[in-house]
């Protein structure tokens, strides 16, 4: 307390000066229209600037909530898109009608191994089961490998063990997508016969002939191909649409008729 009083006494001239200056400026502000307008303009400018700044800060702190809202909204739009495709263009199989989507956040991801695995924050309690397909708004991500109560692991498309049925969107030629373990941006499209016509830039989508993905989900586009193979098939490089190094959110596809198809195959 004593030090505060000492400090006030030491700076009394400054305190008196500031107080009297404020009284003077108040007089200027209230009595002179020129100063009223000028100070008013400055006040408006400052309040505008500070409002923008506080709005930036608030929007930053609200990003997580906004992101969650956008994910939910995107999920609903995806469902509507699939339903629309089925009803109007009949692009996808009967199984799509009974398919539903669930969203999940990625908590672990790798791209620098030959057998890359992704872990998500939803498990059995979130309606996730083994062998479900995993996508993003950009395209295919992988397939659910194993599930615990709250978590699930995904075999990434960047895993040398995974093989995904695929077709060329323009010609509907059937092939399969695999990864050679070299570049996280490129995968290989195999089993496309040399008799098929293709060009660089053609889009590759899922073929629909698997338990995991319906027909038409994007995978990537052709960046290079070699037609000098002696085996009668192209050697095609496909650049994937997904950037696996920055994945944060995925959608899990549920196909309720998988068991029925499996039973049919077993019989």
């Amino acid at each position, binding site marked *: 307390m004593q030090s505060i009083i000492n400090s006030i006494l030491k700076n*009394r*001239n*400054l305190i*008196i*000066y500031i107080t*009297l*200056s404020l009284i*003077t*400026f108040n*007089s*200027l502000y209230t*009595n*002179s229209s*020129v*100063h009223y307008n*000028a100070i008013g303009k400055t006040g408006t400018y400052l309040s505008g600037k500070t409002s923008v700044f506080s709005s930036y800060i608030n929007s930053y702190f609200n990003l997580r909530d906004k992101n969650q809202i956008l994910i939910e909204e995107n999920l609903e739009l995806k469902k509507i898109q699939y339903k629309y495709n089925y009803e109007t263009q009949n692009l996808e199989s009967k199984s799509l009608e009974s398919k539903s989507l669930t969203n999940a956040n990625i908590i672990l991801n790798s791209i620098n191994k030959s057998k890359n695995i992704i872990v998500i924050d939803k498990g059995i309690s979130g309606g996730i089961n083994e062998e479900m397909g995993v996508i993003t708004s950009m395209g295919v991500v992988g397939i659910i490998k194993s599930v615990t109560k709250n978590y699930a692991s995904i075999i990434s498309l960047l895993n040398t063990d995974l093989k995904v049925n695929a077709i060329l969107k323009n010609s509907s030629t059937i092939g399969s997508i695999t990864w050679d373990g070299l570049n996280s941006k490129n995968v290989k499209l195999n089993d496309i016969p040399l008799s098929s016509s293709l060009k660089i830039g053609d889009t590759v989508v899922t073929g629909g002939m698997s338990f995991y993905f319906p027909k038409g989900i994007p995978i990537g586009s052709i960046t290079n191909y070699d037609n000098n193979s002696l085996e009668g098939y192209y050697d095609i490089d496909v650049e994937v649409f997904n950037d696996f190094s920055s994945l944060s959110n995925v959608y899990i596809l549920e196909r309720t008729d998988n068991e029925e198809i499996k039973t049919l195959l077993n019989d």
Partner: protein
Amino acid sequence: MIRESIRNIVFYTIILVSQLLIFNHFNFFDIINPSVYLIIFILYKISYSNSSLIFLGFITGLIIDLAMQTYGCHTFATITICYLRERIEKNSFGVNANLPSAMIKGTRMINRFIFFMLIIFIHSSIYYSLVFFNNELIGKIFYYSLLNSIVTFIIVWVLSQLISNN
């Protein structure tokens, strides 16, 4: 002591009245209105309190503002030079700043010139900045400040020499 106080009050009253009745209506070239009342703060004895000087500046500025309808421009300029006076004095006179009549005698003329000019020019700059209150008129503010400072300096200097001789 009483005689000194009476002499100070009379001096203050004469300067203030002449400022209000004569110098405020000077209007030389429609620009120059010398602030002769600054002599009060220039000749203010350093043995008195600096806080009292700031209050004195506030009251003087307020009276002139009320008379001239300048709403506080004189007051702010005056309290600012009263607050800064101690520092200006030390910078102008150096070690001689402690002399009781450093402002009028016992010091070099160049030091007194710097001291007078700094106080007058700072006051004029603040006053005209507040009067025009527009950064686009900075040239005009400088021009008005300079002309008024020169005329004010001449009058204040002559008056201080007369006081010194008496």
